[in-house]
């Protein structure tokens, strides 16, 4: 019944089956929206955050999805600035993923803050020393860029493109896309970094504090690198997942290996620098702040295994795999390594957010515990559901993978 809206030459499931697929996600989104309503209407006591554990699941979610959403800027950078044309095959999908991640993060942030209606204050009297100011400015600008980048994908829908004004605007917009790719890269550089700087500047938290290199703490640079590593891997994993779910081939295999190679190189650089940073922190920064670094890893919940997992198992290992041509060319290995890469970045964001907050700072304090309330989890899942719904709609009605039609033939 909606055949008219599905791009020509593509096979999509029947409308009824599509509804059946979307319905559970809509339900999940509905529950999340109710939880969000509770938090906005009554106050944040519906969460399990408290004065000691002032950041929780939501901030973790923001950091993670923004790192994973980095695929949009990095793919755009490689395609439009470095002219890696093979990435045309996934750029639309990467843009949609980026848009989902960033809009989801901003939405959750608006629930997370106690007075969302005052969000504009940051623009009106910004504290330019705050990393959060940088994040706020860049996030809003970049979200605008992502919407502009998503616009051509929508305008190229089979029905919409019949309106000459839309098609011509899309055509002209496409011509200036490198400008947006450049702006996106510039903005991403700053806000990905600032998200890392967010923790690196916490002089009161010896576990997170890092010394300044130039004008930013080292976590600033590490977050940029890790996001650039996670982005392409996330695009790879999602593309693979969409191929599995839709039972269609969407891109040429070469695209996968190329994404893997890019992700692997970034990850390798990141892991090496992260190792150096960690060693310097253990031996210099932390002791200077009066903290013995080993003490951070003596609890049962956060043993040194977490550091090993983050840097070696989910860092060095996938990096080596992705950089080994023979291994990279085995699809299962490639996808697993990309998945591990994403997990490694997610673990890093978890450590930076949750472990930082759990570790006590006062000498007489004990390890803090925190477990999210159902409202927090539901909000988290609502973002996932929103992402799945928006992506499904885009996949059904827009051309996310230009190669799909050619592969079919």
């Amino acid at each position, binding site marked *: 019944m909606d055949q008219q809206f599905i791009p020509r030459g593509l096979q999509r499931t029947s409308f009824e089956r599509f509804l059946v697929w979307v319905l559970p996600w809509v339900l999940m989104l509905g529950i999340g929206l109710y939880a969000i309503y509770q938090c906005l209407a009554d106050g944040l006591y519906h969460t399990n955050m408290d*004065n*000691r554990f002032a950041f929780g699941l939501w901030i973790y979610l923001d950091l993670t999805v923004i790192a994973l959403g980095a695929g949009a800027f990095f793919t755009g950078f490689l395609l439009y600035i470095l002219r890696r044309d093979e990435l045309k095959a996934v750029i639309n999908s990467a843009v949609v993923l980026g848009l989902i991640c960033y809009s989801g993060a901003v939405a959750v942030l608006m629930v997370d803050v106690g007075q969302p209606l005052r969000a504009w204050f940051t623009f009106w009297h910004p504290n330019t020393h705050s990393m*959060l100011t940088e994040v706020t400015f860049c996030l809003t600008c970049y979200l605008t860029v992502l919407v502009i980048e998503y616009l051509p994908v929508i305008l190229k829908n089979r029905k919409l493109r019949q309106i000459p004004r839309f098609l011509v605007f899309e055509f002209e917009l496409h011509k200036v896309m490198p400008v947006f790719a450049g702006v996106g890269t510039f903005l991403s550089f700053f806000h990905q970094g600032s998200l890392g700087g967010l923790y690196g500047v916490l002089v009161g938290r010896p576990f997170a504090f890092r010394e300044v290199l130039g004008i930013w703490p080292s976590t600033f640079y590490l977050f940029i690198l890790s996001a650039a590593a996670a982005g392409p891997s996330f695009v790879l994993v999602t593309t693979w997942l969409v191929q599995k779910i839709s039972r269609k081939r969407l891109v040429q295999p070469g695209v996968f290996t190329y994404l893997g190679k890019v992700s692997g190189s970034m990850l390798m650089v990141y892991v090496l620098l992260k190792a150096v940073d960690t060693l310097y922190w253990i031996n210099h920064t932390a002791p200077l702040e009066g903290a013995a670094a080993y003490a951070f890893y003596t609890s049962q919940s956060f043993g040194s295994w977490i550091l090993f997992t983050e840097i070696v198992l989910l860092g060095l290992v996938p990096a080596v795999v992705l950089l080994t041509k023979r291994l990279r060319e085995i699809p299962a290995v490639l996808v697993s390594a990309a998945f591990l890469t994403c997990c490694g970045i997610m673990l890093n964001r978890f450590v930076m957010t949750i472990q930082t907050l759990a570790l006590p700072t006062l000498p007489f304090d004990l390890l803090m515990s925190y477990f999210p309330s159902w409202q927090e989890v539901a909000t988290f899942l609502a973002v996932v559901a929103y992402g799945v719904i928006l992506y499904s709609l885009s996949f059904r009605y827009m051309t996310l993978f230009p190669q799909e039609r050619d592969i079919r033939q």
Partner: protein
Amino acid sequence: MEQTEQSKSRYGMVVDLDKCTGCGDCVVACAIENNVAPAEQKATERTGITWLRVYPVTNGEAFPAHDAVFVPMMCQQCGHHTPCVSVCPQNAVEVDPTTGIVGQIPQRCLGCRYCMTACPFHARYFNWWDPEWPAGTEAQLNPDVAPRMRGVAEKCNFCHGRLHAARTRAAAEGKSNIASPAYTPACAESCPAQAIVFGDLADESSDVARLSKAHDTFRFLSKLGTEPKVYYHSAKEWVRKMADQSPAV
């Protein structure tokens, strides 16, 4: 941050832990003075608001070596690289250049809680609930202090209401500035053991300046380099050592 170092006055405190009995009078006086709403029924020690909190600390030894102190902990008024000031995205935390007091402007606060994450002393509190006063108790509200709304952070500001009142009095007398210290914060005033001394650390002749330099006076987490303006005093060596220890995880 830099302004603090240049400011003429540096308001600070010295808390004598050896005198503190842990009675909690200061906590109550603080809450009444600063219009902290009665705790919501579901509030826990981690969601309730107490600008000043008294922590019991023991030396961990068995009897007879067992010993304990009470540590009243409020905003430590960091004077250098004040952790909460630089992180706030919209200048809702500011250091008063004339007093060195780290002030919170709740009307400007977005409620992002980044400052709370930044504070190593856990001296910042968030309004998880709408503040509510049971019928009739609004009459006790302090007219000099604005109550806060839900969703913002708040903390000790060395009784800003009293500072303002002192300034108003001085202005009425035709003075352009107040002689420091022209007021006493509620906690210091209420302490039956007189364990809290408040004053201008920059004024060499003041009690607080003298006590802050006294033997056995120390600060918590001094290695972080944030230069708190709240000092503690104890003759007990384990207490002084404890102040800079890495917390046992």
